[in-house]
């Protein structure tokens, strides 16, 4: 009854927020490696993400969002993955910027900055919409006259 975690619209918003958080991390990696020879920047695979959202929306309320893939130690000597489950959530793909330098680095700072601005705008919008949606839910539950 009136549980946002069981409503598909809230699950969708949360999935988008998680995707944007991961996108921010991917872009941060690209920017940190702007001078690293041979580094090709990555980005979230938006087609794959849209497909995930469609699946979630299609399953109606309470559809489970994408779950974190657990990092598995491939050899006995490797350390266990962090308890907080830091596996990648969304599919990423290599996405070189418009210029590649002689040493193979394909990161262009300005293009990554554009992506940061886009991500931040999208994220803050989603947070605002989530806030509003909760507010609407609360409004609907108020008794008449109150």
């Amino acid at each position, binding site marked *: 009854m009136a549980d946002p975690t069981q409503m598909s619209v809230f699950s969708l918003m949360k999935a988008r927020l998680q995707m944007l958080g991961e996108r921010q*991390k991917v872009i941060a*990696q690209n920017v940190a*490696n702007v*001078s690293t020879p041979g580094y090709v920047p990555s980005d979230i695979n938006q087609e794959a993400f849209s497909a995930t959202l469609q699946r979630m929306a299609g399953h109606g309320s309470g559809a489970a969002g994408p779950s974190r893939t657990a990092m598995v130690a491939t050899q006995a000597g490797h350390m266990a993955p962090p308890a907080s489950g*830091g596996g990648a959530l969304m599919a990423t793909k290599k996405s070189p910027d418009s210029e590649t330098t002689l040493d193979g680095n394909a990161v262009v700072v300005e293009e*990554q*900055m554009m992506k940061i601005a886009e991500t*931040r705008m999208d994220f*803050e919008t989603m947070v605002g919409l989530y806030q509003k949606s909760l507010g609407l839910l609360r409004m609907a539950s108020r008794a008449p006259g109150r």
Partner: protein
Amino acid sequence: MSSDLMSAMGAAATGLRAQTVRIRISAENLANADTTAATPGGDPYRRKAPVFRTFYDREIGANTVKVTGSREDKSPFQEKYDPSHPAADERGYVKTSNVSSLIEMADLREAQRAYEANLNVIESSRAMMLGVVALLKA
């Protein structure tokens, strides 16, 4: 609490450090741009370049960067004809360092831009995290 946004800030912090090292190396190059050899026919200051390497940091949870050291720029030295110079060789030529002030200044500007971009990542990630936490306040 783990968070992609925190990982983003962690990665950007390593970027800041790496660009700082790059700037220091450039400054050292510029300071030695006009030097000549100490002995006749000897080699003057050889330009240094930072070596960047990427690696995954488990604690931060992202691909970070580190300047693992510097390498010497193998481009040839400039030669100037000046037989009276103490560092002149048997032909009368003096070798000067292979640092070009113009190139070094351009590199410094690029490093500055990269540094600011990393700062931008930290600031926007921070703002996004505050936005999420604000969901608890209304």
